[in-house]
């Protein structure tokens, strides 16, 4: 048997391209449906776990899916914006704790999440080093974000400008890293957390500039009155919030009208949650309240349906591939007629020849299956991360 195995192996090794194509085909036939299933299941579990950990989400009326993807997985698509007053009204209702979210900006690929200090407790995010942001312009990085950006406590990160060639656009803000979070294997690992007010500074709704009362700013002052000072564009605007200039930062207008992408509502109890949801039933309301797990459930149903179609298509392709592989094998038997005859003439039996051919098939099947298994394990290990990183965000 050892000799038969050796001959089979030598044949496959000598015809390495043919063998590689066969092994690759077998691998794909097995891996595509199995890997797809693993991806869907793993992603579903990850998506659902995050959704279930988020009881209610309030946002402006629009796509619930966009709202969930942005608020839970920090996707690039920004949902319709709502007013900060909506968060205040939830808090004032006494029915739930409200955690504001403003997820619109990025620092390179990492999402910048404007929120409140309650978010860290709500998501059970632990500090690995440093402290939580306490001042305007401070940020805390998720473990993966810190690794990606290569920063530590004491360094700084800069928000990406939204419109590089638009003078009136969003300018980058340099933020101090005051803390790094321990990994928790959720989208939080990839995020940069700042106070929502710092997000508004990035937006340009809050700003800091040189003190116009000081003599060096005199040339910029156009007019002084009791209502305020009017200055020209030569006034120096700060693009970094530091100890020395933090006092100059201020916001104009009513904070209640400032934008948020969503508010996470954590009801005091089930009854409070139901009452809170009732408040958004009115069709005239500007906001919507959703249960993220309902939205994710619908999403997974859709994915499952698509998956079934794909698996059906893959099975049809697999049958065609197996039929083709069988045909190739049978044709190769005709090509190998002389070799088989030689083995028979020298003294090899039909059983030996059949065993050798069968061994070749088994080796190809084992190699293809092993590769498919390896890919499936990799998919199981990294599939959901890839989906979260490249599809959801």
């Amino acid at each position, binding site marked *: 048997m050892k000799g038969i195995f*050796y001959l089979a192996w030598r044949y496959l090794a*000598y015809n390495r391209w043919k063998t590689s194509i066969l092994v690759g085909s077998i691998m794909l036939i097995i891996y595509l449906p199995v890997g797809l299933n693993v991806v869907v299941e793993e992603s579903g579990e990850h998506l659902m776990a995050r959704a279930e950990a988020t009881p209610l989400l309030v946002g402006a009326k629009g796509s619930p899916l966009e709202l969930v993807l942005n608020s839970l997985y920090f996707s690039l698509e920004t949902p319709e914006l709502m007013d900060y007053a909506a968060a205040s009204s939830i808090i004032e209702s006494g029915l739930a704790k409200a955690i504001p979210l403003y997820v619109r900006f990025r620092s390179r690929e990492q999402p910048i999440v404007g929120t409140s200090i309650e978010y860290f407790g709500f998501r059970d995010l632990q500090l690995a080093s440093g402290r939580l942001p306490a001042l305007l312009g401070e940020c805390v990085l998720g473990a993966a974000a810190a690794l990606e950006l290569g920063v530590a406590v004491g360094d700084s990160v800069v928000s990406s400008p939204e419109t590089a060639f638009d003078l009136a656009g969003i300018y980058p803000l340099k933020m101090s890293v005051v803390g790094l979070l321990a990994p928790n294997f959720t989208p939080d690992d990839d995020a940069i957390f700042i106070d929502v007010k710092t997000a508004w500074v990035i937006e340009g709704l809050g700003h800091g500039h040189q003190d116009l009362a000081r003599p060096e700013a005199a040339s910029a002052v156009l007019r002084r009155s009791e209502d305020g000072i009017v200055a020209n564009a030569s006034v120096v605007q700060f693009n970094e919030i530091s100890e020395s200039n933090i006092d100059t930062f201020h916001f104009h207008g009513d904070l209640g009208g400032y934008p948020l992408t969503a508010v996470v509502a954590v009801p005091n109890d089930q009854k409070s949650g139901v009452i809170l949801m009732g408040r958004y039933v009115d069709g005239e309301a500007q906001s919507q309240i959703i249960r993220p797990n309902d939205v994710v459930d619908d999403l997974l149903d859709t994915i499952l349906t698509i998956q079934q179609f794909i698996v059906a298509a893959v099975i049809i392709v697999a049958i065609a591939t197996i039929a083709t592989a069988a045909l190739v094998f049978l044709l190769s038997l005709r090509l190998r007629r002389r*070799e088989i005859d030689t083995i028979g003439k020298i003294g090899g*039996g039909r059983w030996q020849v059949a065993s050798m051919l069968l061994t070749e098939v088994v080796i190809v099947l084992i190699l293809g299956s092993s590769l498919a298994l390896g890919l499936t394990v990799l998919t199981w290990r990294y599939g959901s991360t890839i989906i979260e990183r490249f599809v959801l965000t």
Partner: protein
Amino acid sequence: MIDIEDLQFHYADGDFRLDIPRLKVNQGERVAVVGPSGSGKTTLLNLIAGIARPQSGRISTGATDLLALDDGKVRDFRIENIGLVFQEFELLEYLDVLDNVLLPYRINNSLRLDTTVVQRARDLLDSVGIGDKHDRHPEHLSQGEKQRAAVCRALLVKPPLLLADEPTGNLDPMNKDRVLDILLAYASDNGATLVTVTHDRNLLDRFERIVDFEQFLGHGPGH
């Protein structure tokens, strides 16, 4: 060594018939078989080797009546006792020269492959001048080298009977002599019987006996 009596053979399809009333080859004898193409020379070798079975008659090799053995036993007998050399070499392209020589030991469980056998294969390759090419595949050998490798495969089991079907048919004159020298030297040194089919009448004087298939024309092939 080989004793054939009243042998009659024909293929299931076609009108070819082989009819040999009597043919005897002694142990250690070196016999050349000649005759016109299609007269059944190769068929005779196949019958002696047990690859083909006659419809009637008797073939015995040594003390063994091949027709009394089943297929498996015939194969075991053949691999242990008969060295076959073919005109087209019949080397397996996916094996290197050494593995081709060792092929009989890999395809039949009645032979046991060990380091002694591997060393003998290497020695054989050295003795025919292609020891340094043991790791090459047949496609990288000349015709003469291929046939020498095929001869080594036939000699490895030290068979008492060598059957060679036009072993020099595809070779240039120098290689013809060289291959024939190897076969004859083996037969002479080991007291083995050599039956060689050949069309080359220039080689006939190197054999002890010539069996001309013309003699069977009245009885056999095509009649």
